[in-house]
């Protein structure tokens, strides 16, 4: 069938490991969005996912960035209805003025609400605030065969859509619960720690903080495991009522020919950064910079991986297995000396369903240089994940094999059955869904 206003576009995922040229539509009117297109297709927001979740070979990419409006606002209930293509930046630009905010936000302001739903993202302290699904009151889903449907919590389609990688249909609208914004600033305190386990223990003391995370050196060259915990708390008042949202927040389009990072440079960087952060007793940041660290040093951290990019895996470990997992992981790293650069940690809570990345425990992020040795090392991490009943975050790891996801997500088959029931012809698919056999 001929689809109006399309072109061929080359899409690349955030970790730069997959590039595909395929048909691309950017509907700007409801009649284009609701066209009964029967081609294989996948919705796309800002396309910032680490994995190729919003494109695929011979799959029509339906970009929803024109559907980016606030549709309803209930001041008393602090709820909003938005179109799924609205970015966090646009939403917060408005909500900050109303002294409201979304407690769960991923690290980049150009991510859309549709993307937050499809990945069931988490924010700065998932132990306190849980994951995105806890702020979604309902969603509207479009499927060329089923039309528009309003989906509410406690239904299997709702749970399958939250974290469902856009495979249940096009998320067109969502009603979200906002919270009062206590201040326009966050006070962040960094504390040095010597091991990953030290951070996990420190999380217990600060579980009620607004922001809680740890960062450790992953390189075995020197100072392996040394790191710092960051604890962020809202300031007490509104200082100057200036939310300071920068005008330009799109990704820098810079590509380094080679990676700046190696075991020496990353150790040096991590150690220096740790000393810098810990030397400042407390720092006060405006909320935008605190919520979206990817617009600062972190963005350069990823640019410096060069054109070959990087690999990230994120693992959620059950609270009862965390000590053993950390012991086995650090032993493996010390033995194999992989191209591991950074280890990040966050405490978690949540009731895990289908493909959702949430449960009570600790989430660990591992950033590797994309190299041959990394490709040899990552299957060993997969074995570790499976043997400790941990779950890998699908949206972060573009090389995850099907068998790992199948083993780690207990409702993998149920998720597939829901897709089949909801979409018998399985028109919604992407590169990652095909890779994972979904």
């Amino acid at each position: 069938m001929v689809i109006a206003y399309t072109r061929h576009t080359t899409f690349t995922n955030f970790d730069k490991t997959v590039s595909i040229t395929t048909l691309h539509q950017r509907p700007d009117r409801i009649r284009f969005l609701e066209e009964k297109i029967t081609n294989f297709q996948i919705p796309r927001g800002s396309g910032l996912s680490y994995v190729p979740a919003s494109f695929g070979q011979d799959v029509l990419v339906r970009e929803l960035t024109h559907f980016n409006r606030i549709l309803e606002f209930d001041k008393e209930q602090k709820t909003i209805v938005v179109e799924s293509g609205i970015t966090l930046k646009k939403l917060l630009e408005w909500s900050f003025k109303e002294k409201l905010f979304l407690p769960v936000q991923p690290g980049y302001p150009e991510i859309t609400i549709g993307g937050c739903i499809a990945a069931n993202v988490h924010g700065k302290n998932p132990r306190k605030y849980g994951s995105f699904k806890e702020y979604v009151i309902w969603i509207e889903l479009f499927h060329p065969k089923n039309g528009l449907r309003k989906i509410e919590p406690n239904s299997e389609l709702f749970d399958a859509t939250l974290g469902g990688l856009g495979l249940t249909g096009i998320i067109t609208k969502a009603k979200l619960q906002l919270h009062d914004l206590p201040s326009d600033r966050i006070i962040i305190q960094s504390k040095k720690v010597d091991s990953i386990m030290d951070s996990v223990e420190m999380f217990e003391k600060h579980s009620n903080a607004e922001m809680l995370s740890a960062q450790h050196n992953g390189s075995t060259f020197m100072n392996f495991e040394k790191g710092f915990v960051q604890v962020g708390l809202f300031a007490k008042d509104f200082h100057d009522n200036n939310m300071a949202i920068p005008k330009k927040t799109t990704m820098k389009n810079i590509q380094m020919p080679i990676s700046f990072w190696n075991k020496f440079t990353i150790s040096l960087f991590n150690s220096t950064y740790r000393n810098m952060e810990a030397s400042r007793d407390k720092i006060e940041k405006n909320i935008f910079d605190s919520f979206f660290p990817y617009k600062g040093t972190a963005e350069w951290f990823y640019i410096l991986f060069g054109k070959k990019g990087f690999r990230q895996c994120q693992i959620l470990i059950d609270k009862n297995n965390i000590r053993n997992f950390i012991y086995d992981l650090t032993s493996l790293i010390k033995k194999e000396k992989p191209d591991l650069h950074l280890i990040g940690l966050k405490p978690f809570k949540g009731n895990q369903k289908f493909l959702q990345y949430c449960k009570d425990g600790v989430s660990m992020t591992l950033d590797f240089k994309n190299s041959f040795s990394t490709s040899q090392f990552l299957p060993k991490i997969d074995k570790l994940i499976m043997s400790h009943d941990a779950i890998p975050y699908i949206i972060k790891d573009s090389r995850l094999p099907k068998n790992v996801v199948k083993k780690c997500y207990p409702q993998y088959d149920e998720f597939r059955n829901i897709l089949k029931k909801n979409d018998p012809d399985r028109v919604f698919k992407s590169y990652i869904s095909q890779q994972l056999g979904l």
Partner: protein
Amino acid sequence: MTFIIVGASAGLGRSLTEKFALEKNDLILISSDVRDLIPLKSDLEIRYKIKIIPIEMSFKKIPLDFTKINDSLSTLSPLDGILFPIGYSGNEDVPGMDDAITIEIFNTNLISICMMVNHFLVLLKERKSTIIGFGSVAAIRGRSRNATYAAAKRGLESFFESLRHYMQKSNVTIQFYVLGYLDTNLGFSGQDQLYFRRADVKRLSEIIYSNLYKDLGTIVYPKKWKLVKLLLPFVPWQIFKKINF
């Protein structure tokens, strides 16, 4: 202040709507499908606390019924201007096409706009106001594609020239923007045929807003198309007939 934007649901029209709303103007928005205007109304009213009235109205068929617009105007501050970022064409627009589509293209791009200008001229003359029309580089010199659309847009440019001449002693400013390739859905699929980079509609909206009451006449945007507008009519037929654009 109050403005009417015809063709507000997408592309340049939507971008203009967002700019005029940002500047705290009340708006009457017109589109053939009100479903596209309702979300825009909600969004802009929530974010900017202004008043927006969406009206479904197709410019494809005449005569036009202005009752809803007149009724809406009675609830807002006096009218300060009308903008016509509206256009309609299609791949079928080559000589020999169906009469019904020919009429729809002429109506949308020329006749309905002239009728609406004629209807609201008396009202606009009462105060400092503006009427802004939009043409296309497709109308510089007729070619195989967009034949009827180009003819209508060339006619519209002529109408706006006449309008400017007629209104010279009034407080009404008449402007006509001849537009090159823009980054809208219409240009989205034309990637392979573009000789010029598509211009950002947000930037154009800012320019239009800042020039609102200036007597600029016909403006070519982006500026690099000025040269094309100047030279293309003089390209010898033997060469012109071979150009595929």
